[in-house]
């Protein structure tokens, strides 16, 4: 009897999940189109790196899902190495970087430019370069009304472009909006996603990107000191291997996976997640279903990239 009572209790607890844990991406986002176009130009401009060899797009390639299909960024060193998070939908993340050290896009965008191990520019050099370009001078004069382009103006324009990088109208969003039905496999995958507890971390509009969680909750994951976890910021033992939960949007096209880029396929990523985070060993069937569900999260390319 006691067991039945428990089951009822558990079911009751589950009934609290009435709120929508996942919301579709908005179809449009408010941004200044002129600034965004200017930002787009800057985003692809290698002038923003010391040796004129890197642009923002070098690591956040729109053709590679807003990231790159390599394990780490081209300049990753022992001090700082991580898989590159996608720039798509980054505007909806509650913090930026794996450990959330930037509170928003604005803070994020300036860091790689100035980072000596990345694009390695100084503010002054950037300003010198950008102000000696007649084209940029004119564009900034027209759009920002300034005669001298400052570092902040450059970052602002890039951020405006990044805001525009949203990928709406994924199959799952359409499903959420009641426009389509998922296939039985996708549907079951979503159910498993909820039942197994993935959703406790991967929720919200970005299906992740809104909390810090420990990698290796149930079954520990090996900790390596050069990855940018929360411990890098707080220094607290319990923050080791604690990362910002990555968004699952476009997860099918943003491989490899995890902070260390150690996993190439979605199936393996799902399997590892279930093992480390939930202490569950999933069946192949379950994995397939969940992967099918995850594939519905791939959205349309941002409008601003289309022309």
């Amino acid at each position, binding site marked *: 009897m*006691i*067991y039945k009572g*428990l*089951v009822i*209790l*558990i079911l009751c*607890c*589950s009934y*609290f*999940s*009435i*709120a*929508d*844990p*996942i*919301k579709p991406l908005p179809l449009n986002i408010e941004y200044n189109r002129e600034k965004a176009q200017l930002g787009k130009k800057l985003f692809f401009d290698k002038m923003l790196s010391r040796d004129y060899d890197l642009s923002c797009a070098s690591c956040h390639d729109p053709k590679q899902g807003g990231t790159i299909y390599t394990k780490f960024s081209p300049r990753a060193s022992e001090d700082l190495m991580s898989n590159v998070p996608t720039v798509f939908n980054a505007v909806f993340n*509650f913090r930026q970087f794996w450990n959330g050290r930037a509170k928003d896009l604005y803070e994020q965008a300036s860091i790689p430019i100035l980072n000596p191990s990345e694009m390695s520019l100084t503010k002054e050099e950037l300003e010198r370069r950008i102000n000696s370009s007649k084209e940029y001078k004119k564009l900034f004069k027209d759009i920002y009304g300034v005669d001298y382009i400052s570092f902040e103006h450059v970052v602002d324009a890039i951020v405006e472009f990044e805001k525009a990088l949203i990928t709406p109208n994924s199959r799952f969003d359409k499903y959420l909006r009641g426009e389509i039905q998922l296939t039985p496999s996708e549907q079951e995958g979503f159910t498993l996603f*909820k039942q197994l*507890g993935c*959703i*406790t*971390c991967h*929720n*919200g*509009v*970005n299906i992740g990107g*809104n*909390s*810090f*969680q*420990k990698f290796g*909750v*149930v*079954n520990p994951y090996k900790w390596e000191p050069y990855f940018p976890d929360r411990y890098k910021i*707080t220094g607290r033992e*319990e923050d080791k291997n*604690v990362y910002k939960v990555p968004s699952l949007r476009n997860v099918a096209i943003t491989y490899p996976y995890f902070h260390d880029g150690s996993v190439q396929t979605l199936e393996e990523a799902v399997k590892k997640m279930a093992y480390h*985070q*939930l*202490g*569950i060993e999933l069946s192949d069937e379950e994995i397939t279903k969940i992967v099918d569900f995850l594939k519905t999260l791939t959205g349309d390319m941002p409008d601003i990239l289309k022309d």
Partner: protein
Amino acid sequence: MFKKVYIFSLIVLLVTVMFLYFDSYTKNIITSHERILRIIKTIEGLETKVDSEIFRAGLILYYSYDELNRYMDELDKQIDLLSKDKYLQKPEYADILNMVKSYQKLWIEKKEHIENFKTANSPIKNTAMYLPLLTLKFIQSVQNISDLRYTYLLTKIVSSIYLSRNSMDLDFVFDIQRDIKKLKEYRFNDKDKETFNQTFLSNVNTFFYFFHSYIDAINNILNIKTKEVLSKIESTFSKRFRKESRTISMFTAVFTSMFLGGIGYILYLLLRLEKDNKNLQKLRNTLEYSIRHDSLTDLPNRYSFEEDIKHIKNPFFILVNIDDFRSINDLYGTRAGDYILWELARFLKSIVPEELGGRVYRLGADDFGILFDMKIEMSYEEIAKQIIERIENHKFIYENNEISISVTAGITTRHPLLETADIALKHSHKTKRSKVVVYSYEIDNKKQIEENLKLIRALKDAIQKDRVVPYYQPIMNNQTEKIEKYEALIRVLDSSGNILNVDNILIIAKEAKLYSQLTKIMLYKTFMYFRNKNYDFSINISIEDIVNESTKEYIFLILDEFKDISYRLTFEILESEEVKDYEEFIEFAKRIKEYGVKIAIDDFGRGYSNFSYLINRDIDFFKIDGSLIKNIHKDTNARLVVETIVSFAKKTNIKTVAEFVNSKEVFEAVKEIGIDYSQGYYIGVPVESV
């Protein structure tokens, strides 16, 4: 006056400036206060929402952290807004700003706790959900009693985990440590069950691993003093505002009282203005009345009179004057005089027939005017006489004294009324013939003066243009009845040669200082005329001529010039004139005797004759005044006087001449009396040439 206006304008300007300043001051305070309080309230609300989201996140299995994050971001923004609010940057708000800063610090701390909560919450939720599911899974595969005991242990652990999670009590955790230990020691032959046990245990461990930080996070979230600080900020700020609002109230009170004071003052000024206006009007009326009225008698005065006659069509005006009013003052005192004037005014008003539109005025000290605007049938004189009669019959009783007055009146219908009436009145006083005189041109001296001026002009003109000529009137010797001599009479001709008919030309000439010139002309011309005629001749001179050096000199010049005929000349000296310088006359008489000139006293017997000085002098003729002669044939009294004169003349060896012999009867009588010579129209009129 202008100074007041300036001062007042300045005050108004000051008050306006103060008011504008105060207004912006107040607005700033109120809007800032509102804004800040609104932010504080928003922060408060957001924190409450954050808290409730935290509990939702704990409670709801499929919870989206987006909600929680959104409120936290919003809260960040609001705190930023508050800490940067320019109103709080003022030094007097430094304490509040510090509190805001410390709130921000606490909030950052709380955010960390929330992140820790989130990190712990997910595995807690997952394990708490997963453990019963695992238990349920095992129950389905229960095979023996040992399995059942194991199930019991699982259930016990699960329920303890539930209890501890829901009670947030770590004590339960210690309770189940024993059970977990037991579980750890459990060994199964079945590999699946062994794996199950490991899975179950790792989930339990996960739960307890996170449960500590979960509890810590929740406790930290619950215990952090953010809300206290926030409410302290609010209360401190409100208190500060109340203090500031007291300043506002004070200012408001000041301005309100200034405003009310201003209105009150304006009301007071309006009332005073009204009162002043009334007083002014009253004063004006009084002044106007007093300008138009005599203060003693309350009658309209001369000013009124002048105003009234402007509009009058048929004026009839009586000017009444109290005879010898001065003597009333002298006799009874000025107060009595005033009383008489007052009483007379009252009496006149009562007797003037109102139906004739009469109005009584006081026009001078004792002059009263009665003005009618009407043509009347009755003679004006009659009306005036009746009024005078009534006045004179009226008894003025002053302090038991009966005082009677007599009055004189001038009447006029001609403009200027007052002047003409006055002339009439003066005429009455002068002539004393009648108490009432109606104005006419005849009695108007002014007219005479005008006439005189005209004459003087004519006379001057005549002298200049040699139109003064002597006419000669024959004088007959009564015994021989022959014309023996002529009297030269002055004639003034106008431009066309006609004789100006002027009786008193000599009087006018004397007044105009032309007399001596006339004498000179007469002297010269008469001498020139008679030097070749075999007649005696006489010329009129006056005492003035004798006294006037220039004339006297000229007389002797002429006498020297015409020495050979001077013995034929007789100077007729006007007897009626007063001889002031007696010695002068004697001297003159002596000197002309040397030239054989004879002296006649003209108009002898008219009334001013001074016989005494004539007796011993060399008077040759008496020219007996015409008034005695003209009726001598029937007037016995006149004849008696003339006979006496003649008798006197004969005794003193003076010849007599009768003037005004204008008829045969007179001539006969004159001869009878024994007058030596006759002159007059009967004898002959004056002619230009002999």
